[in-house]
């Protein structure tokens, strides 16, 4: 497989359908779909669960609605996550020369395409060589998910205080439901509702679910192509000013740094700390697109009342929890408005984008001053304006965006991707965020979550080697001009990732990954003044995946991590070892997955993130911290056509401990068990 890292890049190439159409085609192989999702998600960076969830959702939609390879536009091809920009350009060029592809085998002649990649591609493509729109009969469809989960141990939040009151207002059950309906050819709608653990439901104070969202989408074949009323996500350029789905992150797909998220899509995300909700209109023709949009969202905020300034917003909350009285008092207590316009113009080998937006809060944002937030944006409103472009010249693909706010200096993200000698892929990227740059809806690739003051240079390379080896890696060198949380002054750092992948046989692959990170942190010192020091982190991972036949998948993984901070002794290394076993019945009506892992990471800095099997649409990449073991058992059963059931049991075990967690999340004892049930019905 030429691009194993790219194959695993769910995150950066998260695309979304421009339509939530549910296909009238026969249902695809769900076992294959689940294996793809797990393999791709297994390579995500730690802490990227939101992005994994979005990618998982988009993969499922893409699989249900294959792309016609002979009419697909560049934007449509970008929905295929593991196709690199250079492969897409090569594919378009090949199609231009040959006029049409009649089967997947013809695509082997595409520059940079290999048999293994095509095998992954095949179920996502269809080869209609008639240009006319398909005249298939439309059939209304619906897809319903219902999920419930609960911890079996009692957290402190559910225990009565001495005065008899209970901190958490609701039950320990977490409930989620999601419905998508393709009612008519032009009309689709979706609904999602969620109640977190501890939140009340069907009470006087909370008659319905804590989170409720949805969309209604109408599409036509005219200039007014689409209207979305409800929740949606937006993306433009490299995301410097507009990227509401999920931020672009570094990953194992080392040459995939360009933002390829679709301009917009309806959203059923349950991320309560972001996203847009309002109206979006898609106006456009063959070569142009205009997207006026409006959003009004009620956000959670920590409010304060000042004598002179009145009510101010100290910070916006994003965790979405409304369990305690304090959290419920902060629920949806401040409004956020966004209005804007983004446009795109398509040229044969270039795309130009521009846009502007105005952002406003009900209450002015005025954080309590600290050493690290001196340059953070404060105020009631701001605006952004941006220009972006991307295109190809010979075998090079370029992309760039510059964005402005009230600051005199613009932010910049620019990059280049090239296919060297028709084999190796190279990516270069440069980013610069002025100290006073702020984009409330931005999400460009950066090292820090608040990128103001960051400058960075990125180099990525992917190189196929003989004997079925593939080497890839990136080096990201960056600097920050101002203090950040845990870093009392300007600092530099770099991030190095090296991956060696071996497709040992047709059903066995091995991956060895090394990562080194150096970054500035405050020294641990007994002195009152903070002194800036350095932290060095080394991670080594080996993963072996064996998938003989259609029934079994076995994955063995080991991690080793060391951290050293200047001025302190080297921390005890973190260790992780796991074995996954998955068995699927011959009838494919049921499958069982078992995961057992041991871990030993006594220091928080050496904690190890590891993806683990979970039910469809629920991604799990927990941090393994402390000393113990983890057991996960997951079963799926399809008793009837169109009806899927999942049951998941998981357990954390920390031998010798008297409690797990802290605060309201604390559990007595050394075990923490959770059970999860999910039902899916396709109509």
């Amino acid at each position, binding site marked *: 497989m030429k691009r194993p890292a790219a194959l695993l890049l769910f995150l950066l190439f998260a695309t979304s359908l421009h339509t939530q159409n549910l296909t009238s085609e026969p249902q695809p192989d769900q076992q294959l779909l689940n294996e793809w999702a797990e393999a791709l998600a297994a390579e995500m960076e730690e802490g990227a669960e939101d992005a994994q969830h979005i990618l998982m959702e988009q993969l499922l939609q893409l699989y249900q609605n294959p792309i016609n390879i002979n009419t697909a536009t560049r934007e449509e091809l970008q929905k295929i996550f593991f196709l690199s920009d250079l492969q897409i350009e090569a594919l378009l060029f090949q199609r231009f020369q040959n006029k049409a592809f009649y089967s997947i085998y013809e695509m082997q002649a595409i520059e940079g395409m290999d048999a293994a990649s095509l095998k992954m591609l095949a179920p996502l493509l269809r080869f209609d060589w008639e240009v006319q729109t398909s005249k298939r009969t439309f059939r209304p469809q619906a897809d319903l998910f219902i999920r419930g989960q609960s911890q079996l141990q009692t957290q402190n939040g559910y225990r009565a205080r001495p005065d008899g009151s209970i901190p958490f207002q609701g039950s320990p059950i977490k409930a989620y439901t999601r419905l998508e309906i393709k009612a008519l050819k032009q009309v689709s709608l979706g609904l999602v509702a969620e109640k977190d653990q501890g939140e009340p439901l069907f009470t006087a104070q909370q008659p319905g679910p804590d989170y409720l969202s949805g969309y209604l989408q109408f599409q036509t074949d005219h200039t007014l192509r689409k209207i979305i009323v409800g929740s949606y996500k937006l993306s433009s350029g490299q995301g410097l000013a507009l990227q509401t789905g999920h931020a672009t992150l570094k990953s194992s797909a080392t040459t995939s740094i360009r933002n390829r998220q679709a301009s917009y899509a309806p959203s059923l995300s349950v991320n309560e700390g972001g996203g847009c909700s309002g109206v979006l209109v898609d106006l456009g023709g063959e070569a142009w697109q205009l997207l006026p949009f409006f959003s009004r969202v009620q956000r959670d905020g920590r409010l304060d009342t000042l004598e002179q300034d009145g009510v101010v917003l100290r910070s916006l909350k994003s965790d979405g929890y409304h369990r305690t009285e304090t959290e419920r008092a902060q629920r949806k207590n401040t409004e956020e408005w966004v209005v804007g316009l983004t446009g795109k113009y398509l040229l044969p080998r270039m795309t130009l984008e521009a846009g502007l937006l105005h952002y406003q809060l009900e209450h002015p944002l005025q954080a309590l001053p600290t050493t690290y937030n001196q340059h953070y944006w404060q105020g009631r409103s701001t605006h952004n304006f941006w220009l972006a472009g991307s295109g190809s010249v010979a075998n090079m693909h370029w992309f760039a965006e510059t964005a402005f706010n009230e600051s005199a200096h613009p932010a910049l993200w620019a990059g280049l991707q090239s296919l060297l000698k028709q084999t190796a892929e190279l990516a270069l990227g440069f980013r610069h965020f002025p100290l006073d740059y702020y984009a409330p809806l931005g999400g460009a690739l950066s090292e820090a979550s608040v990128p103001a003051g960051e400058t960075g240079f990125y180099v990525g390379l992917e190189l196929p080697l003989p004997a079925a080896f593939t080497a890839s890696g990136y080096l990201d060198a960056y600097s920050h001009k101002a203090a950040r949380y845990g870093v009392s002054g300007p600092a530099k750092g770099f991030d190095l990732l090296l991956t060696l992948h071996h497709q*040992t046989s047709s059903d066995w692959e091995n991956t060895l990954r090394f990562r080194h990170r150096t970054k500035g942190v405050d020294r641990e010192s007994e002195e009152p003044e903070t002194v800036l020091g350095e932290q060095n982190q080394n991670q080594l991972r080996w993963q072996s995946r064996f998938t003989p036949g259609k029934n079994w998948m076995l994955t063995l993984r080991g991690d080793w991590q060391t951290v050293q901070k200047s001025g302190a002794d080297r921390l005890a290394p973190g*260790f992780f070892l796991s*074995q996954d076993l998955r068995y699927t019945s011959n009838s494919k009506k049921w499958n069982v997955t078992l995961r057992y892992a041991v871990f030993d990471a006594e220091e928080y800095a050496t904690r190890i993130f590891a993806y683990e099997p979970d039910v469809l649409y629920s991604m799990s990449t927990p941090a393994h911290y402390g000393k113990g*073991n983890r*057991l996960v058992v997951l079963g799926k059963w399809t008793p009837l056509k169109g009806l899927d059931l999942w049951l998941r049991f998981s357990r954390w*075990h920390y031998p010798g401990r008297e409690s797990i967690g802290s605060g309201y999340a604390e559990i007595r004892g050394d075990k923490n068990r959770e059970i999860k049930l999910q039902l899916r019905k396709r109509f």
Partner: protein
Amino acid sequence: MHDPDSTPLPDRAARPPLKLKRILLLGLLAPHLLLSAQNTLPDHAAYWGGTGATAVGLPAHQGNPAGTAYSEHRFLALAHQNKYGLPELSSRDLYFLLPTSLLVLSGGFQHSGQRPLQGETYSLAAARTLAPWLRMGLRGNYWVQRQQEKEARTAFILDAGVQYQPLRDLSLGFFTCNPLQKNWSDKDPYHPLPSYTAAALNYRVVEGLELEVGVLKEADFDASFHGVLQVELHPRLALRGALSGTPLRLSLGTQLQVQAFYIHLQLQHHQVLGWSSVVGLAWRLPHKPQQTTSS
């Protein structure tokens, strides 16, 4: 030898009895044993070197139970282990391997220590070849500890393991001993039940030469990495060397086949605790080879 210029030895009658001296020595060593990594020394590491994760046939009895599924013959075996020269830590094993049409059964009895502290372990394992490249096994162990003038205490633990063969000459093994990390009912910190997890890769470089690399993680200690090299000098004679750390452990062993008997000798040196030795004898019972069929 007593130095005549030193203070005279106390009267023999006043010296502590030999047994008590050993117990005191053990008591002095106990914290040291606890502080040194790998002090519980999983049986397979002591008997054969390596982690035991890719052990097949008879050696799998002390290691990955999945490896016993590889057996086609019936065996009866006994062994004696002398750990660090301390009889209190020595053990004696009697075990069997019994392939049937459905499963491969194995089990045995181990007696360890000596008065006043002795231990007995009764084990029974079942393993099966589920596919030509996949074996799984499960083992139950019933532990009994008897201390003089105290009531015996017991515990039951399970081991589980899997072995698979992605290539003809290469196998991977993963097994866990006492994955639930059960302990005695009184949670005795000085005699904890073993709990560890191991994974290894075994590669047959050429016929008669095998290389194994693996990692073993005991519950309360750092992970240790193991390397093993086995050379078959003759179809009836094999040499085995193993190196692991930390702490550093060097192991050398040999296995000799004389007709239906297999003689096993193993020496191991622990960086801190010194020498251990194992002597074993196995008898391949005369019987028509039984192949366990996959499902």
